């Protein structure tokens, strides 16, 4: 029942917002594409239901595709404005040694109740995941190095970033994982993960102060001309150097294990031993966060989606145990999970997933 309610509420919100936005966008010279990959499937579960909602839409102007982010709710507007501020500050940050590539902003406007941010759509020859693993590795490494080049170390740096990006320090990670551990009970056991972070706070802090993309996954990057463009600047913050690495490696543990292994091996071969520990700490933290995230789905889902949430909790808990034990996830476990997931996913979600990564 709750599932339908959540889905219905999202559907109503979406239609209401689209009805209000269409004439404004038309007036601004933009039109919406018929196919909107970011509106359907499990999208209603990936955004908070009460506040902070926004629409991510594909549009066109003069034949060229654009990305439109729009909201009429205080939380969503704040998120759009925050993303824009992050982008602006990144362009003029004085302590970054490399530049970041991000889609060009075409328009930022407040019309009626709506705040609208329109950026260019980065056309790519092939999505990230369809490239050979060697190329994926090289691209990811290049993007991580660009992020790492922004390292806030001084009092003055801290003042610049504090109010815009926010900063996660060791105590913050430990506090959060303690909360996840409590909230995930009785569906998942995160105690060992929590202890592991609590006992290694110095390493967490040691590699803090780096710019990192909280959601560094293929759906948030696009590749053009051998360069990675980062999407969703609101996911950038200052924290442990390996937070973004951990997100991608955990993701690839499911989608492309050789790439996950290559990234771990790179850190082992080229960086200080403490950095391998920092990477492991962040992988554990991000996995605990993911398990907690799917535990949060349970009261809002039913039938297949509820079964899917349970399967996801079980699978990511398995990955967490493997990382804690310095083991690889058996291929059979991955395959079995993929089959179960595909059998439980709705047709609409399967459609949404096509080309998403």
């Amino acid at each position, binding site marked *: 029942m709750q599932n339908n309610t959540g889905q219905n509420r999202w559907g109503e919100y979406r239609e209401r917002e689209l009805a209000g936005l269409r004439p404004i966008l038309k007036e601004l010279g933009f039109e919406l594409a018929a196919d909107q990959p970011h509106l359907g499937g499990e999208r209603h579960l990936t955004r908070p239901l009460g506040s902070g909602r926004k629409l991510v839409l594909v549009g066109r102007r003069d034949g060229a595709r654009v990305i439109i982010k729009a909201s009429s709710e205080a939380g969503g507007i704040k998120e759009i404005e925050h993303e824009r501020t992050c982008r602006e500050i990144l362009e003029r940050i004085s302590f970054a040694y490399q530049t970041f590539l991000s889609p060009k902003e075409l328009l930022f406007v407040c019309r009626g109740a709506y705040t609208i941010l329109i950026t260019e759509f980065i056309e790519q020859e092939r999505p990230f995941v369809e490239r050979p693993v060697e190329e994926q590795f090289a691209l990811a490494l290049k993007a991580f190095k660009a992020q790492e*080049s922004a*390292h806030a*170390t001084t*009092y*003055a740096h801290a003042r610049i970033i504090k109010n815009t990006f926010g900063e996660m320090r060791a105590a913050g990670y430990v506090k959060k994982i303690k909360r996840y551990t409590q909230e995930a009970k009785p569906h998942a056991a995160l105690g060992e993960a929590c202890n592991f972070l609590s006992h290694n706070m*110095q390493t967490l802090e*040691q590699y803090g102060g780096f710019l990192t993309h909280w959601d560094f996954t293929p759906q948030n990057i696009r590749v053009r001309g051998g360069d990675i463009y980062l999407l969703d600047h609101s996911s950038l913050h200052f924290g442990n150097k390996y937070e973004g690495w951990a997100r991608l490696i955990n993701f690839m543990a499911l989608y492309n294990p050789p790439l996950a292994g290559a990234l771990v091996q*790179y850190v082992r071969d*080229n960086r200080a031993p403490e*950095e391998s520990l920092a990477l492991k700490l962040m992988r554990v933290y991000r996995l605990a966060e993911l398990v907690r995230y799917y535990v949060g789905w349970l009261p809002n889902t039913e039938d297949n989606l509820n079964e899917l949430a349970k399967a996801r909790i079980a699978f990511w808990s398995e990955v967490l145990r493997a990382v804690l034990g310095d083991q690889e996830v058996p291929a059979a476990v991955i395959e079995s999970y993929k089959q179960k997931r595909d059998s439980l996913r709705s047709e609409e979600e399967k459609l949404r997933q096509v080309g998403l990564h």
Partner: protein
Amino acid sequence: MKIVLASALFPPDIASPAPYVKELTRRLAGAHEVAAVVYGSFPERVEGARIVAVSKRRPLPLRLISFTLALWRAARHADILYIENGASVELPALLIKWLVRTPLIIHFGDPAAKKYFSQKMLLRRAAGTITESPPGRPEILPFAPRPEAALAAYEQSWSGHVRMLEEKFAHAK
């Protein structure tokens, strides 16, 4: 020989000259008593060397005072003081040069560092300057053959660099 290195940058900092200073500390620590006085909260460990860290997350005057004190404590009984260019190290080094007789050599490892009056004054008191640095360590990449030749050249370059420095240190006054 008791050697004190001083640098504004040290890993986990990634910018030049951080990797150079750590590698030099590691290589010198095998044959000498080495202390590195650096800015940072949790510098990476180097076996056999003492790393003295001064937090950068304090207002500028406070961290300059802390660094000066730390450098003075380390340098007063040392045989050589080897510092990286940059005002945040040059200024404390200039102050302690009035207090200790330890010979000082400046390494220009940070091309981005601005030149202030402190550098000009310190150069007058320095026993020498070094401008060269070995190249960065070649990366070992997962899908490529191990760069054996480049790694060998890197080792050779470092051996030569350390030999040259030891020679300079021995004759510095």
